[in-house]
C-alpha cells in the first residue's frame, strides 16, 4: 500500500458556507488525496486535535464569514503550542487582500480566493506538503 497525501478540510467558526469547501474536498479526492472533512462549525481546538489524530499533512481552512483573522490565528497558535511544524496550513474563501498579507505573516502557506481553479490548489498541495517533497 502506498502513502497518500492526507488533508483535513476544516470549517471553523459559525460559517455555514460549505459549497467551496465541498468542491475543494472533491477535487482533492479526485486527485487521489485522502480528505478528512471536519463538518461545520469546528473550534480551532477541535480542528488541531483532528489534524493530530488523523496525522494529516495539511489543514485546509475554508472560511467566508469574515472571521478569518480570528480563526486562522487561533489555529496557528495551537499548532505552535503543540510544537507542530510539519502540518501545512492553507485556505480559501472570502478574505480581503490586506488580511491575506497578515495571514501569511503568521505562517499560513497560501490563501485561495473566489475563482481559483481547483487544479491550482491541488498542484500547490502536491508541491508543498511534506510527502510531496520526499
Amino acid at each position: 500500500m502506498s502513502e497518500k497525501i492526507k488533508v483535513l478540510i476544516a470549517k471553523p467558526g459559525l460559517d455555514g458556507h460549505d459549497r467551496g469547501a465541498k468542491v475543494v474536498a472533491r477535487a482533492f479526492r479526485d486527485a487521489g488525496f485522502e480528505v478528512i472533512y471536519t463538518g461545520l462549525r469546528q473550534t480551532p481546538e477541535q480542528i488541531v486535535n483532528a489534524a493530530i489524530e488523523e496525522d494529516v499533512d495539511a489543514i485546509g481552512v475554508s472560511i467566508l464569514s469574515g472571521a478569518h483573522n480570528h480563526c486562522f490565528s487561533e489555529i496557528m497558535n495551537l499548532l505552535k503550542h503543540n510544537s507542530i511544524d510539519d502540518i501545512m496550513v492553507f485556505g480559501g474563501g472570502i478574505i480581503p487582500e490586506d488580511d491575506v498579507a497578515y495571514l501569511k505573516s503568521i505562517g499560513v502557506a497560501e490563501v485561495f480566493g473566489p475563482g481559483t481553479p481547483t487544479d491550482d490548489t491541488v498542484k500547490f498541495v502536491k508541491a508543498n506538503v511534506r510527502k510531496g517533497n520526499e
Partner: protein
Amino acid sequence: MSFDASLVGRFLKGDKRACARIISIIEDRRRGYEEYMEALQPHVGSAYIVGITGPPGVGKSTLINRLAAEYLHAGCSTGVIAVDPSSPFTGGAVLGDRIRIGEIALDPKFYFRSLSSRGSLGGLSEAAVDVIRVMDAFKKEIILVETVGTGQNEVDVMRACDTTVVVTMPGTGDDIQAQKAGILEIGNIFVINKADRDGCERTLRELQSMLMMNPLNDKYETPIILAKSNIGEGIAEIKAAVDKHRIYLETSGWFSVNRAERNARAFKNIMNLKIIDEINRRLSRAENYEEIESQVKNGALSPHRASVQLMEYIEKKILHHSAE
C-alpha cells in the same frame, strides 16, 4: 524510513501525535512497519473491541458518539476507528464520520481515527485489524469500530471484534434481507436506530423472525434494542448489552477461543498476502513474464493456459530453487 525507537517511547508515554504517526506507518504498510507492530506487541491485549456495522446513514456514527461518551463518562479510555469507503477510481477518499463526534472530541481519554478502505482488495481488513492493535497498545480500554456492512472486507473487520453490533432502522426491510447472508450471523447485538420513525414495529418483527432461524443458544439470547441515537435514547441499554455479551464470552470460554482464532487468522492472512506479494515479485522477473502477459492481453493465449505455464515456472524455478 527506519525504525524510530523514540517514537515508540513517546507512544508508550501516551503521546497522541506518536500514536497518530505509528498508525499511519502501519496503515500505509510503510517499509519496516512490522518492527513497530513487534514493539507494541507486549502492550496489546487488554482492550475490548466492539464492532458497529450497518448500511449507510442508519446512524452508526451518531450512535458511536453517544456510546463513546457513555464509556468516557464511566472513566473508560475509549478509541474509535471509522472505516469509510473510498473513491474506487482515483483511490482518493473523503472521510466524514468525524462530523458526528461532538464534545467528546477534546476529551484526553478519547482517540478517533478515520480509515479509508482505499478501494483495494484485501489488505483493508488486515490494516484495520492492525490499527485496532495499535489503539489497544495505546491503552484504550474500549475500541469502537465503524464499518459499512457490505462486502467481505467489512465482515473480516467485524470478525476481529469481540462483540458485533448490527444497526438497522425502520423501513429498511430490504436492507435487512440483503444483509441477511453476511451480517446477520455475526451480529451479537441488534439495534433498531431511529426508533422515532414510523415502521419500527414491523422492522422489529422482521428481525425477530430472522433471528429465530439462528441456531439455538440457551446461554446467550441475541438482544434487539430500540434506540434514538440522536437524542441518546437506548445508548445505556446498548452498553449494558455489550457488557452482558462480554460476560457471556468470558464465562463460556468463547472469549479466549475467539481471540486465539483471531490471532491465527491474522497470521494466516498476513502470510497469505506476503506470499502472494513475494511470489508475484519474483514472478515478474521471469524472462518471459511480460510476453505471456501481452499474449493474454491480445488474446493469443488463454488466461488458463498462461496460468498453467506460469505455475510450472513457479514450481520449477521458485519453489524448487528455494527448497535447495
